């Protein structure tokens, strides 16, 4: 969620314009990629996102460990591939390799004994937080009606973001969780759920008629809710690391993790809910 400054001072106009312009350029490209791109191209795109997300994460989490962070981003970006091959052994072996490599890295490049355990843990968390969760988008894309599911997820998250932003700006009074994200309000969170619901129903009425009405409502609330939690968690991480934006890669939108925070949490939920929908038949 983009923080809105509803009291004291104007919303930074230039920032908003940049934001909209970026969306106008990026959104059609994204739609084209999901709609027309092959499964393989989509997987490559997720690898790229994992890579960029990991770079940002390591920069925030371990700012003094730049070269290690870069190497780990490169390696970690390929973790979602383990999911593409539908082979649990491959997944477990790549995760094991990542754990041992990280351990060895800190064993041999230790700077401060007291910090080594924390550093190793932060390092490992990056792999789980970014590529592992994000990889579920690849799994989701491979399911029946995968393209529609991906668009449904994006619609729910994006319309939820917008709903939260506008309702929060207008009616936001009661703080949601000030210790983590002072700009978010309970009203905004509810507006977000309403936005997600509207998004899901529009999706069902347009590109995803195969989705049942009940499923549309449940996915909206489930993915919208989990997405908001993902947003809060990323705020928590940033606060904890003492940074404001996760990065500057998306003009007007902050970092890539700021954009993906809801999606990384909503993607696994979407995948397992989609599976549930198929099983139920």
């Amino acid at each position, binding site marked *: 969620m983009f923080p809105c400054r509803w009291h004291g001072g104007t919303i930074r106009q230039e920032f908003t314009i940049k934001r909209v312009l970026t969306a106008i350029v990026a959104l059609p490209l994204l739609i084209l990629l999901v709609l027309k791109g092959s499964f393989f191209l989509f997987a490559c795109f997720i690898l790229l996102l994992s890579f960029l997300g990991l770079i940002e994460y390591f920069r925030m989490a371990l700012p003094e460990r730049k070269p290690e962070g870069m190497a780990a981003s490169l390696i970690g970006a390929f973790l979602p591939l383990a999911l593409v091959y539908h082979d649990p052994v491959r997944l477990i072996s790549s995760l094991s390799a990542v754990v041992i490599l990280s351990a060895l890295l800190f064993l041999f490049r230790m700077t401060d004994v007291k910090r080594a355990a924390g550093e190793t843990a932060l390092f490992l968390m990056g792999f789980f937080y970014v590529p592992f969760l994000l990889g579920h988008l690849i799994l989701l894309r491979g399911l029946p009606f995968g393209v529609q599911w991906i668009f449904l997820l994006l619609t729910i998250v994006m319309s939820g973001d917008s709903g939260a932003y506008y309702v929060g700006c207008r009616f936001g009074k009661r703080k949601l969780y000030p210790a983590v994200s002072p700009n978010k309000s309970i009203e905004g969170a509810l507006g977000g759920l309403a936005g997600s619901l509207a998004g899901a129903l529009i999706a069902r009425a347009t590109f995803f008629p195969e989705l049942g009405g009940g499923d549309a409502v449940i996915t909206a609330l489930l993915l919208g809710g989990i997405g908001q939690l993902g947003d809060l968690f990323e705020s928590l991480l940033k606060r904890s690391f003492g940074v404001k934006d996760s990065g500057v890669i998306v003009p007007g939108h902050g970092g890539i993790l700021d954009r993906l925070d809801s999606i990384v949490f909503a993607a696994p939920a979407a995948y397992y809910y989609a599976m549930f929908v198929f099983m139920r*038949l």
Partner: protein
Amino acid sequence: MVNPKKLPRHLAIIMDGNGRWARERMLRRIVGHQKGVETVRTIVEECSRLGIRYLTLFAFSSENWLRPKTEVRALMALLKRYVRTEAGRMMQNNIRFAVIGNRSDLPTDVNREIDDAIFRTSGNSGMTLTLALSYGGRQEIIRAATLLAADLAAGKMDAAAVDESFFERYLYSFGMPEPDLLIRTSGEMRISNFLLWQLAYTELYFTDVNWPDFGIPELHTALRDYQARERRFGRTSDQLHAGH
């Protein structure tokens, strides 16, 4: 590219490999069937776009009733939903819908959707999409023979007048041309009791690709392969070139 002048008039497909596709991904079989439904949509619309006149899909055989009960139930639910949601798309694409097979085996609610779709699309003049449901080739021939025998016994015609084209009137496929090309996916190389009578001179094409992965490029490959063949219907190549 696919030559639009040498398209098969009638394309028949044995859609095999949904279960295999699912197993390779550690998914349940039913997920594979749903992925297969998505492929049906893609292939139906591409065939219609190309200008193929008849497309017949082996969706459910007489023997498929022997599968586990849960799978059969799921397949029937899937079929019902497919017929309902696709009828609208068939209207958009000017596709006429038909079914061959022993429809009395099918659940009533499925039959109702089928009747509705057949009725709604009956005025369409584009491709005819035929689903073979609870279909078996031997069963079809026996049914035809029984009907014919009844007509003979009733004295409606003379047994001496029965020839191939007369017998065909008793088949489910009456009025349709014979398939020019049969595609079977997922590596199996057999006919599996599909259109036994009608496939007499049909070109056969087998591919290892599982049905859920059979996309437009794979369809084009099959059509190009077909177009490169010489169909002789029992004659010699020279006879064909001489224009007999």
